[in-house]
């Protein structure tokens, strides 16, 4: 498992390559890149700025990677999350999961992204039309994360 938070631009292609490099036991890699777009609802975006809760952000991602490793037979997981100022075209978040077979890799990557969106302590501020504003949480992200809940009692505290 590799979890990294960085304030520098990074290369998702190199991250994906690092996950399976020199390995011959991996049959499937699913790599997700979340990229800063240049517009939202028709409005031009100049930049995003990501704030995070240092210490808790890493711990929360690692906890979810461990849960993914318990739920699916994974052979490798790599997560990179940007903080600070991000320009359109730059990657905000990268999640890659490796497994013997494709279904586990797809499901684990989607699970991690859904949980990152709703549980990892990061907050996005958007700079558009000369103004900055905090991005509202999306209800559909909560619904996406709720798909993965297995034990309502255990997850009630989250």
């Amino acid at each position, binding site marked *: 498992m590799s979890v990294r938070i960085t304030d520098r631009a990074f290369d998702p292609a190199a991250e994906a390559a690092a996950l399976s490099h020199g390995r011959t036991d991996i049959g499937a890699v699913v790599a997700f890149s979340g990229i800063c777009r240049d517009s939202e609802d028709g409005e031009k975006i100049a930049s995003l700025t990501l704030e995070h*809760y240092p*210490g808790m*952000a890493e711990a929360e991602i690692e906890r979810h990677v461990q849960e993914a490793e318990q739920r699916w037979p994974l052979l490798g997981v790599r997560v990179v999350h940007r903080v600070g100022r991000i320009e359109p075209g730059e990657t905000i978040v990268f999640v890659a999961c490796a497994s013997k077979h494709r279904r586990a890799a797809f499901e684990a990557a989607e699970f991690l992204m859904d949980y990152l*969106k709703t549980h990892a302590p990061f*907050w*996005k501020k958007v700079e558009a039309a000369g103004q900055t504003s905090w991005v509202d949480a999306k209800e559909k992200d909560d619904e996406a994360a709720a798909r993965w809940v297995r034990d309502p009692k255990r997850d009630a505290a*989250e």
Partner: protein
Amino acid sequence: MKILYFAWIRERVGKAEEELSLPATVQTVGDLVQWLKGHGEEYAYAFDNPKVVRAAIDRVHVKPEAKLAGAREIALFPPMTGG
């Protein structure tokens, strides 16, 4: 007690963290948010709508009913928008 604020709650309160001595009546996260709301104008603004406030005790997500007893660090923040 060490309290941290993030995102627009931090901006509205006007600081990222502070040490506060809490009265004995403040037992849960929900109590804390209500108490902070009456702590001054900037707090009233930050905690205007307690329903949208999320919390972590010692870097673990908790519900408003969570007890503060034994906590080292309490963080208050809006819903997360990472990823």
